[in-house]
């Protein structure tokens, strides 16, 4: 189960990336293609096989893990801006791309890099799981969860408002799925409190968050495609 979930998530992300290519070629919403490529890359770098391979090219000292963190920050910055705008949440958008949001991002990025280089990270290990847990590693991992959680917290109120209002059923279901994914990212802030005996919960929460968020974004795309198809069918039969 836990071995399948990452690959399933990657597959879903790649599929959702692929369906966006035609509209991106037409020039519609290219940023969403970029976002999906980023999400796919994030997932790819979270899976052991590809991680070890890519880290091997980068010198075998887990630089890919740092790269993954920065890719994740970029992913969430982009997603945060797009989603806040989509759900008409000016407060959320300000909190992400305004001075406060950029300060949070900058500080997180600098601290992430600082703690990474303060550790001896020789020997590829996905999620740095082969290393002895120490305060530096704990903080490094917490920083990596913090920024996505921060963005998720900024987005939740706007999406919640929209889910509660009426609108196309599929769109509301997709928004609710996205809401679930972002909610799980906030839950992931308490990872250190999860006892080792149920350690499998952590990857389960992480990949469920990624899967729910991408499925939610994909569902929004699907609801638009369906609505436009049925409205063009109506006009063509008139």
């Amino acid at each position, binding site marked *: 189960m836990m071995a399948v979930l990452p690959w399933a998530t990657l597959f879903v992300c790649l599929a959702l990336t692929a369906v966006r290519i035609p509209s991106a070629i037409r020039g519609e*919403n290219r940023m969403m293609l970029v976002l999906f490529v980023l999400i796919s890359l994030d997932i790819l770098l979270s899976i052991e096989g590809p991680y070890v391979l890519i880290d091997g090219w980068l010198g075998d000292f887990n630089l890919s893990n740092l790269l993954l963190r920065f890719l994740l920050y970029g992913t969430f910055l982009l997603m945060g801006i797009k*989603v806040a705008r*989509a*759900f008409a949440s000016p407060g959320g958008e300000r909190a992400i791309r305004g001075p406060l949001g950029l300060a949070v991002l900058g500080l997180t990025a600098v601290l992430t890099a600082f703690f990474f280089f303060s550790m001896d990270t020789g020997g590829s290990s996905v999620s740095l799981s082969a290393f002895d847990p120490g305060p530096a590693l704990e903080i490094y991992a917490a920083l990596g969860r913090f920024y996505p959680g921060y963005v998720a917290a900024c987005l939740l109120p706007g999406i919640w408002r929209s889910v509660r209002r009426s609108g196309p059923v599929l*769109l509301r279901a997709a928004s609710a799925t996205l809401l679930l994914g972002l909610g799980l990212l906030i839950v992931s802030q308490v990872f250190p409190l999860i006892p080792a005996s149920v350690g499998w919960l952590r990857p389960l929460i992480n990949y469920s968050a990624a899967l729910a968020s991408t499925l939610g*974004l994909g569902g929004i*795309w699907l609801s*638009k*495609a369906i609505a436009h198809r049925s409205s063009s069918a109506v006009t063509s039969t008139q």
Partner: protein
Amino acid sequence: MSLPSKAFQRWLHGIAPNTSTADVCRFSGVKRTTLAQQLVRGKVAETSLVSISRAFDMNPFDALAQFEAYAALRGTPVPPTDAELVSQVSTMDLLRAVVQRSEPRDGLAPLVLADTPHATSVRNWVDAVDDGELRHRVSDATGIAPQNFSAHLTANRLPPELALSTSRAAGVGPAGGLVASGLVTEAEAGWPPGARRDALDRMTDGELALLAGERLQALGKALRRQEHELDDTNRIWENLG
């Protein structure tokens, strides 16, 4: 609430003793699978009964009255109040009436009201019979939560049993809610022809203008809400679709 299968089948046998269920469905346009399912569950929907009665040239209002739960419909019919009648005039017809009254012209065709029910007939009927405490009394009598009652009004729906309880709680005749929800027509409910038109004519210019204004206000709000929702949806699609 709905009609018990046994009583329904007895009734059906009474009006169409030699007709198969398949034929009953064909004549009435009720889907066979739907009716079969309702019979198996022991709960036949009032709408099925209404369609079947119409197909057999029977007044659906009288047909309903034969069932125990609708005993309130028996006896001397209670005429609708003027407020109830006017509540079943559509907003556009009300506005036409305002225009016709303020600009009387010879040779103009008299206003022909659209058939019941109209787009906001349920809410308008409840407002017409509400003394301010009606919703509380209905909720006490039936156990329906006030927000569920409101949801029915917003959706312009009123289940027949709720329509009856509302009439009872409001102290008006039992037919109004059934007409407002579109289960039966005004003629089937025994409202005299032209009764809505006459009630409209009995209103003073001021009353008519105020009522039309209220309706227009409500229509405007509903339209704005729809426009906002459409804007929200389009914004999501533009950014993420």
